[in-house]
């Protein structure tokens, strides 16, 4: 079978001072091929931990990740990652950054040149090919990161707050770009965000996680990602269900945060 399967995943960090943090407990999830899923949750609920385990950077204490039927044991070119910022290689120009994956696989320029140039066109960086990445704005850098991930043609793309460091306007443009790329390439995408609106806009499925221990709190299936592929995102936000869902989820996360604060006060 194809797709990504997360089975009874638990992660406990044992700290050197003898205590331990249960970052994830019994998380199970199936993600079909070509699905785009957004993950929301209060700070510290284990979103990054979950993504790092899926990427293969961390081994879970219990459970496992299965990809196309085989178990994930480490990072691999089939699972690409887009970080919040700072993961580009400053010593390479834009084009070398984007072509990093194919070049490491030992491919010749004849094999990847056209694809890379096409991707640079798609993310609107055709004129910046030869530029150094530190000369680009934050939004442009994230587009390079997206293109770099796509150039390697992974099956799954994992994004940890990829747009978190951008201003509102750039962020909106990038959200459209992510949707466009998702539709065009048919990749499976898992996207972590702190913005409820972003999660609603980009998530065909939306996962709300709860903290201590980190677990799945609620799941939604939403129409907005499909709508957003062809429409202006601002139009999508005017959808009556959009406001309703946003209030519902905001309230849910608000309650969780309240509870965390309450517990902190109790123990203090």
């Amino acid at each position, binding site marked *: 079978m194809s797709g990504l399967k997360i089975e009874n995943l638990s992660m406990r960090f044992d700290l050197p001072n003898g205590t331990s943090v249960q970052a994830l407990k019994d998380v199970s999830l199936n993600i079909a091929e070509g699905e785009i899923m957004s993950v929301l949750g209060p700070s510290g609920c284990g979103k990054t931990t979950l993504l790092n385990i899926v990427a293969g950077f961390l081994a879970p204490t219990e459970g496992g990740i299965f990809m196309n039927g085989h178990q994930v044991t480490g990072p691999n070119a089939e699972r690409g990652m887009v970080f919040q910022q700072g993961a580009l290689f*400053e010593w390479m120009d834009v084009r070398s950054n984007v072509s990093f994956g194919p070049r490491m696989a030992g491919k010749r320029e004849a094999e990847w040149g056209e694809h890379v140039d096409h991707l640079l066109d798609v993310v609107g960086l055709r004129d910046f090919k030869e530029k150094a990445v530190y000369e680009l704005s934050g939004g442009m850098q994230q587009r390079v990161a997206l293109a770099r991930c796509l150039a390697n043609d992974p099956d799954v793309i994992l994004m940890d707050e990829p747009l978190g460091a951008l201003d509102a306007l750039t962020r909106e443009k990038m959200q459209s770009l992510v949707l466009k790329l998702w539709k065009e390439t048919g990749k499976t995408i898992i996207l972590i965000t702190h913005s409820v609106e972003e999660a609603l806009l980009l998530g065909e499925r939306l996962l709300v996680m709860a903290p201590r221990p980190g677990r799945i709190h609620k799941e939604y299936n939403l129409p907005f990602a499909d709508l957003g592929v062809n429409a202006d995102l601002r139009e999508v936000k005017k959808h009556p269900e959009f406001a309703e869902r946003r209030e519902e989820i905001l309230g849910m996360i608000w309650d969780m945060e309240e509870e965390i604060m309450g517990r902190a006060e109790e123990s203090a």
Partner: protein
Amino acid sequence: MIVFLIYAAIFVISFFVVKYVVQKATNDFTSLKTVTFGDESAVKPNRVASVISVLTIFLLWGAFTGSKLVPSFVHAPGPFVGDATFTYTAEADGVEADDATVTVRVFQVGTDVEAPAVEPGEGWAKNDADTVGAWRSGLIRVDKNDEKSRGEGHKVVAVNGEPIAPGGSVQTEFGRIGMSPKGSLNFEPNKGWQMEPIWLPPPEAVLKRMGEIASEGYRDSTLWEHLGYSLFRVVIGFFFGALVGIPLGYAMGLSNWFRGWFDPIVEFMRPVPPLALIPLVIIWAGIGETGKIILLFLAALWIMAIAARAGVSGVAISKVHAAYSLGASKFQIMRHVIVPNSLPEIFTGARVAMGVCWGTVVAAELVAAEKGAGMMIMVASKFQLTDIVIMGIILIGIIGFGIDILMRLAEKALVPWKGRI
């Protein structure tokens, strides 16, 4: 003291002159910042101040050494040179006190001089003539040509009419006349405020000496050989230090075992100044090239190892993760991520190491060497050739500065992203 006060005065005066008269307006945007005090980025070196600073040093140097390169009205008062005269009054058994004049020719040390010719004069105390070098002092045996000797009770009781006793002194317009406990007169001409060439030669003397040594050499080697040898040792020592130190630092940054094994050694050697190793290296390897290169190797080794280690630990983990999920192998991550990412740290380390090596080589040559910048100034100082010493110090400074500038240029060309991420 005077020099320092003059220096401070020039500092303050030129500040106000430049601020209110010369530079009325700067037009870049920092001039629009209202908060500049405490904003480090608004502090730029004022180039006018730099130029004045350098000129001031040369001006003071010239003024206090009577240099011909600076106009004579800025010269500090020089030492007295010329014929100084004073009279003395002597007493002796059985005769009345008598006066005589002493003429002392004060000359620049190093020039030929003859005592001035004088008339013997009236009375039993005769006029004397003698010579004393500027900045020096000399005994003047006034009783030598008098008709009474010390055995006949000859003794000087006054100079220029002022009474003088053994151990005392009289100040005249030409200098100080002191009397030794045994009653001999001692003339110390006025020194003025200028420095004696043997302490600090004027700039033109240093320049002339530099020209001389550049064309004729010093101690069987040309100037370029001396400097070249020092540079050669630094480059070779640094090269091998980097060759071993950088891989060692990488290994320490990448492997628990290497880190554990070498940490105590590196941490122990780091605070040991290379100068402290000179005696040991001389015992082991002698004073030849090998010893010097081993010393510089050791000086560069730890610095480069620590820089490379810091470079590895400075890699953002997200870059390494990104490379892994793009399918890179461990070797590729080393080659394309860790090594380039550590270059800025390595360059910083290389600059420090070069500076330390340059200082160490000069010090090692001061101790023992047949050729080299340090050896040149050491030998010159033994012969009190202050001009060569100062020339050497200036050249050592210029070369050290030059090395640093070259390293900075290389850094700019090779790691243009430094400090921009």
